[in-house]
C-alpha cells in the first residue's frame, strides 16, 4: 500500500483517490467514439495489404455509386494537401540533414507498408463505407519488401529520396570517437554484446478515433481526436497539412484511453477527416478497429545494437562504444528521428562516470509500420544495452554485479554532474536506491531461496538494473539546438472564480495519468483549499492556453510548474487585495491555509472574501490593480529532470521447458518529491507491466513479405495479471529536482525503462547458476527462446560436470 506522507488526507503527499476513476469505472467516460454529431458520416480507409508496391490500377467508380456513399477520395483528390510533417530534424554525421521523404495522407502511386491508407470512403454508416471499399479495384504491382535492417541498403528503395534506405547516419559525440577507439584498444578488458531491442505495439486500450467538423457559417474546423497533445496536432495539421489558420481550427482531445506515446503523433486519418468534413459538408467520423491499430499506430523500439564496454584493471569503466541500427518504418512519424538519437545517445552514461562515450546510429527505412516514441522512448534502449553489458562484464570479471555498479556510480558529491554525452544531471543518489532495492528484495536471503528452488529442479535467478532517464522534457533552447521544430514549455491558466473555487486550464493532457487529481492536490495545497474546490480542465485548444501536451514524464515537472507559477501570481495579487481590505501593508500580509493575516496581529480575511472582492471590486485598489483573479503562465524548464533508481527481478526458470516465473520484482525509484504516492505507485506498476511484457512475451514480428504476423491478440502476447508478481514499489529515496518549484522528476516511464534489463539479467543469472553458461538471450524471453539457449550450451554444461 502506498503510504501517505505525514498522514495527510489531501494536498501534496496525500494518496487522494483518483477523481477521474469514478467516471471511468462506471463506464461514463466520454471518449472520442462516444461522441456522435448530428449529420455525421463515417469514414473507412482502404489500406494496402501489400508491404511494398506500385499502384497499377485504382478504380473507385463502383464504390462511388454504392449505397450510402457520400464520397470516395484518393491521393488524386488531395491536391494542395501537405504530407504528415515530422517534428524533429536530425543532422547526419557528414553534416547533411536527414532524408525526409513525403508522408502523404493517402498513398501516392506507391504503398510502403501493410496498412498504408490508399482510399478513404465516406458513407452514411460504417458498414456502407466498408461494403463500398469492397468494390474498389486496386491492383498493386508488388516490389520486394525491405524488412531486415541489416540488408536494407541492398534492397529496393522504400523512398526514392533515400536510395540506400538510410535516413541518417548519426555519430555522437563525434569529437570523442578517436579517444573512445583508443581507450577501447588500450583497455584491460572489453566486454562486447550484441542485442536486439524488440519491436513492440503500444496497444492503448482505446483505439484511435477522430471526428472532423466544418462550420460553414464561421468557416471554422473542429477536430475531436485521441491525442496526448491537442495543440501540437493543431499546429502541425493546421500549418503543414491543411493550411488552416489556428484561429479557425479547434482540436479537442476528450477522455483518451491510454497513449504510451502512440497518441503524440499527428496521423493521416485525423487530417483526412478534418479536410473531408468541408468537402462533403458534413461531420466525418472514423474509429480504428483493433486490426487497424496494429497496422497504423506508431510502434516502438526495434533497435539492433552492438555495445562495447571498456574497463581498466581495477574494473573502472573507461569507455563505451555503440553501434545501433534503428528502424524507422516506412515513414517518419512526428518525433521518430529524436528517439534513437537525442533521447538515446544522451542517456548512454547511465548512472555511471564513464568518461568517454560514442554511439553511431544508422536509422533505416523499412516497409513496416512507422516507429516512434513508446513509453520511455530511447531511454529504455540505452538502459537495456548498458545494464546488460555491465552485467556481462561483471560475470566476465568475476565480480558482484552490484559492486561493479556501485564502484562506477556517479557519487552524490559529484552533482551537478556533466556527462560526456551532453546532459548535466542536477542531483541523485544511485547507491541509495540500489541499497534500498536490494534490501527490499532480500538479496541476503537469495542463496537460501536458490537452494530451495534447486531442490525442486528449478533454476532461481536474481537480476539487478540501475537506470536514469531524462524527463521533464524539455528546455526549449536546448532541444531547438538539437533539431526540435517546437518549444517544449508548458502553459497553465489558473482562474479563481468569484466564490473562491478554482478552475485550472492546463496544456498537459491526461490519458490515464490522473492529472485531474494530482494537479488539484498541488493547487489545493498552495491555496489551502479543499481539493474538491479545484477543477482541472485540459484537452481543448478552445479552452486551454497553448500547451505542448503529455509525454516524456513531463506533466507534473513542466505542466505542474506552470500551474505553480500561475498560483504564485494569484497569491501575490490576492495579498494586495487582502492588504487593501485590511488597510495593512502588503509586505505584512501572510497567506497560510486559506487565510490572509496581518503578521503579528489577529486581523485576517479569508480566501473567499478576497476572491469576492476581486470580482465585486467595491472596496478595491482599482487605481493600481485590475479586478479579477486569473493568471496564465508559461514554464520553460531550465534542464531535464533525472529520475533514477534500481530494480531487482527474481525469477525461476524451468530448465526442462524454458518457462520463466517472475517470483518477485522490486522497484526503488527516486522521483524527487511525490505529490500522490498512490498514483505514482500505479504509474510504476503500469510501466513495469509494459517493460516485463516486452522482456517476456511481446514482439511485433514481420515476415519477409512485410506482413505483420503478430497483429491480433491471438498472436501478439500481452502480459496478464497472472504473468506478473505483486510488485514491491518504493519511492522513499528522494533527491528533489533542483530546478523546478515542486522538486518533482516524473514517474511515468521509469517502470518500462528499468525492468527489461533487470528481468533478462535475472534469467541469465538463473541459467548460469544452473550450470548453463548462456551469455545472452534476445527479448522476448519466451519459453522457446530460453529452452533453445539451454540446449545450445547443454554439451558445454555436461562437459563441465
Amino acid at each position, binding site marked *: 500500500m502506498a503510504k501517505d506522507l505525514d498522514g495527510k488526507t489531501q494536498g501534496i503527499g496525500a494518496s487522494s483517490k483518483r477523481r477521474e476513476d469514478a467516471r471511468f469505472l462506471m463506464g461514463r467516460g466520454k471518449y472520442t467514439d462516444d461522441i456522435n454529431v448530428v449529420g455525421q458520416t463515417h469514414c473507412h480507409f482502404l489500406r494496402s495489404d501489400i508491404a511494398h508496391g506500385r499502384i497499377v490500377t485504382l478504380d473507385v467508380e463502383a464504390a462511388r455509386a454504392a449505397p450510402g456513399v457520400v464520397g470516395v477520395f484518393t491521393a488524386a483528390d488531395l491536391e494542395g494537401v501537405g504530407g504528415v510533417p515530422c517534428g524533429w530534424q536530425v543532422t547526419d554525421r557528414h553534416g547533411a540533414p536527414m532524408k525526409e521523404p513525403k508522408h502523404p495522407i493517402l498513398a501516392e502511386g506507391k504503398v510502403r507498408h*501493410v496498412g498504408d491508407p490508399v482510399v478513404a470512403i465516406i458513407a452514411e454508416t460504417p458498414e456502407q463505407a466498408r461494403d463500398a471499399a469492397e468494390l474498389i479495384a486496386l491492383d498493386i504491382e508488388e516490389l520486394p519488401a525491405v524488412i531486415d535492417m541489416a540488408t536494407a541498403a541492398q534492397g529496393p528503395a522504400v523512398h526514392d529520396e533515400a536510395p540506400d534506405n538510410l535516413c541518417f547516419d548519426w555519430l555522437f559525440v563525434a569529437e570523442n570517437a578517436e579517444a573512445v577507439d583508443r581507450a577501447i584498444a588500450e583497455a584491460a578488458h572489453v566486454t562486447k554484446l550484441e542485442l536486439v531491442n524488440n519491436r513492440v505495439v503500444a496497444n492503448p486500450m482505446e483505439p484511435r478515433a477522430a471526428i472532423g467538423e466544418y462550420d460553414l457559417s464561421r468557416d471554422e474546423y473542429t477536430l475531436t481526436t485521441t491525442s496526448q497533445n491537442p495543440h501540437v496536432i493543431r499546429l502541425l495539421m493546421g500549418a503543414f497539412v491543411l493550411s488552416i489558420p489556428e484561429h479557425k481550427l479547434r482540436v479537442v482531445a476528450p477522455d483518451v484511453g491510454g497513449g504510451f506515446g502512440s497518441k503524440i503523433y499527428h496521423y493521416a486519418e485525423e487530417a483526412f477527416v478534418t479536410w473531408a468534413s468541408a468537402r462533403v459538408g458534413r461531420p466525418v467520423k472514423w474509429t480504428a478497429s483493433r486490426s487497424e491499430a496494429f497496422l497504423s499506430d506508431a510502434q516502438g523500439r526495434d533497435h539492433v545494437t552492438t555495445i562495447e564496454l571498456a574497463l581498466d584493471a581495477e574494473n573502472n569503466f573507461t569507455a563505451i562504444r555503440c553501434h545501433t541500427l534503428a528502424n524507422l518504418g516506412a515513414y517518419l512519424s512526428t518525433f521518430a528521428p529524436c528517439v534513437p538519437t537525442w533521447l538515446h545517445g544522451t542517456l548512454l552514461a547511465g548512472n555511471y562516470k564513464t568518461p568517454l562515450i560514442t554511439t553511431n546510429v544508422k536509422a533505416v527505412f523499412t516497409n513496416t509500420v512507422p516507429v516512434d516514441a513508446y513509453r520511455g522512448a530511447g531511454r529504455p534502449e540505452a538502459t537495456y544495452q548498458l545494464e546488460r553489458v555491465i552485467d556481462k562484464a561483471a560475470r566476465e570479471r568475476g565480480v558482484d554485479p552490484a559492486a561493479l555498479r556501485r564502484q562506477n556510480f556517479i557519487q552524490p558529491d559529484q552533482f551537478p554532474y556533466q556527462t560526456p554525452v551532453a546532459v548535466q544531471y542536477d542531483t541523485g543518489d544511485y547507491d541509495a536506491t540500489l541499497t534500498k532495492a536490494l534490501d527490499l528484495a532480500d538479496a541476503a536471503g537469495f542463496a537460501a531461496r536458490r537452494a530451495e528452488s534447486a531442490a525442486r529442479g528449478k533454476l532461481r535467478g536474481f537480476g539487478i538494473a540501475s537506470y536514469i532517464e531524462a524527463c521533464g522534457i524539455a528546455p526549449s533552447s536546448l532541444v531547438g539546438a538539437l533539431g526540435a521544430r517546437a518549444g517544449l514549455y508548458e502553459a497553465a491558466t489558473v482562474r479563481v472564480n468569484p466564490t473562491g473555487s478554482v478552475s485550472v486550464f492546463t496544456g498537459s493532457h491526461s490519458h490515464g495519468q490522473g492529472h485531474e487529481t494530482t494537479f488539484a492536490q498541488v493547487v489545493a495545497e498552495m491555496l489551502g483549499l479543499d481539493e474538491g474546490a479545484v477543477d482541472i480542465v485540459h484537452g481543448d485548444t478552445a479552452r486551454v492556453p497553448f500547451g505542448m501536451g503529455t509525454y516524456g514524464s513531463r506533466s507534473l515537472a513542466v505542466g505542474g510548474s506552470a500551474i505553480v507559477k500561475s498560483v504564485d501570481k494569484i497569491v501575490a495579487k490576492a495579498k494586495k487585495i487582502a492588504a487593501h481590505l485590511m488597510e495593512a501593508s502588503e509586505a505584512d500580509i501572510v497567506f497560510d491555509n486559506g487565510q490572509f493575516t496581518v503578521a503579528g496581529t489577529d486581523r485576517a480575511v479569508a480566501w473567499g472574501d478576497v476572491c469576492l472582492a476581486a470580482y465585486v471590486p467595491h472596496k478595491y485598489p482599482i487605481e493600481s490593480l485590475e479586478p479579477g483573479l486569473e493568471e496564465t503562465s508559461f514554464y520553460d524548464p531550465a534542464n531535464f529532470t533525472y529520475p533514477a533508481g534500481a530494480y531487482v527481478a527474481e525469477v525461476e526458470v524451468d530448465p526442462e521447458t524454458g518457462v520463466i516465473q517472475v517470483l518477485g520484482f522490486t522497484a526503488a525509484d527516486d522521483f524527487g518529491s511525490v505529490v500522490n504516492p498512490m498514483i505514482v505507485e500505479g504509474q510504476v506498476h503500469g510501466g513495469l507491466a509494459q517493460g516485463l511484457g516486452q522482456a517476456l512475451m511481446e514482439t511485433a514480428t514481420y515476415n519477409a513479405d512485410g506482413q505483420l504476423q503478430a497483429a491480433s491478440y491471438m498472436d501478439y502476447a500481452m502480459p496478464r495479471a497472472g504473468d506478473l508478481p505483486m510488485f514491491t514499489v518504493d519511492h522513499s529515496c528522494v533527491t528533489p529536482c533542483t530546478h523546478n518549484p515542486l522538486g518533482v522528476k516524473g514517474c511515468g516511464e521509469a517502470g518500462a525503462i528499468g525492468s527489461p534489463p533487470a528481468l533478462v539479467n535475472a534469467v541469465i543469472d538463473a541459467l548460469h547458476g544452473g550450470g548453463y553458461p548462456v551469455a545472452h538471450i534476445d527479448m522476448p524471453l519466451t519459453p522457446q527462446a530460453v529452452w533453445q539457449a539451454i540446449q545450445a550450451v547443454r554439451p558445454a554444461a555436461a562437459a563441465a560436470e
Partner: protein
Amino acid sequence: MELTGERMIAAERAAVWAALNDADVLASCIPGCEQMAWVGDNALEAQVTQKVGPVKAKFKGAVSLQDVVVEESYRLVGEGKGGAAGFAKGGAAVKLTDAEGGTLLSYTAEAKVGGKLAQLGSRLIDGFARKMADEFFDRFKSAVEGPQAADDTAENGAEAPADAPATVAAPQTPSPETATAEPETPEPATAASEASDDGGEQKKGWFGRLLG
C-alpha cells in the same frame, strides 16, 4: 512453406492430364470453389469461399497454368483477392509420370497470405495450406478415378469445415452405393478426353454432367 506430396491415380496419363486441364474438374477439386471458367488459353477466373482461422472470405481470383509441358507437367498459379480479408496466393507444380496401374501425380505447393488473413491467420496458414493441398489432390484423384473412390472423398469432404455450396464437390456426391449402382456413370477416361478435346467454356466435366 513448401508442401510436397504425391497421389497414385488409377488412370492413363492422358486422362489425368485432361482432367488437370478441365475447369470443371479443377473447380470441383478446389475446396470452396463456387465457380471457375476459362478466360484465356491458360487462364481461368475463379471464385472461392474459404475460411482461414477466424477469417471467412470470398476470394475472386485468377488462376493460370504456367510452364505447360503437355501430358507431363505444369504450374498452377492462383491469386485471390478477398476484399477486407486480404489476399491469398498459391502455386502448385504438378508432374505426371507413368506408373504401374496408372499415373503418379507429384506436386510441390506453396501458399502466401496478406492483409487480415496474415494478421489473424498467419499462425494457421501452414496447416491450412497443407489441408487445402491434401483435399485438392484427394478430390482430384477421386474425380479422375471415378465414383469408386468417392467413398474416401466423401469422408474427407465431410471433415472439411468449409463446404462448397455451389459446386459439385465431394460432399454433394451421391452416396457411394447409389454412385456405384448408377449404370450411366461415364468412364472417367472418356469424360476427361472429352474435356480435353474442347477448351471452350461450354465444356462440362463428368461430375458436372452427373449433377446436371
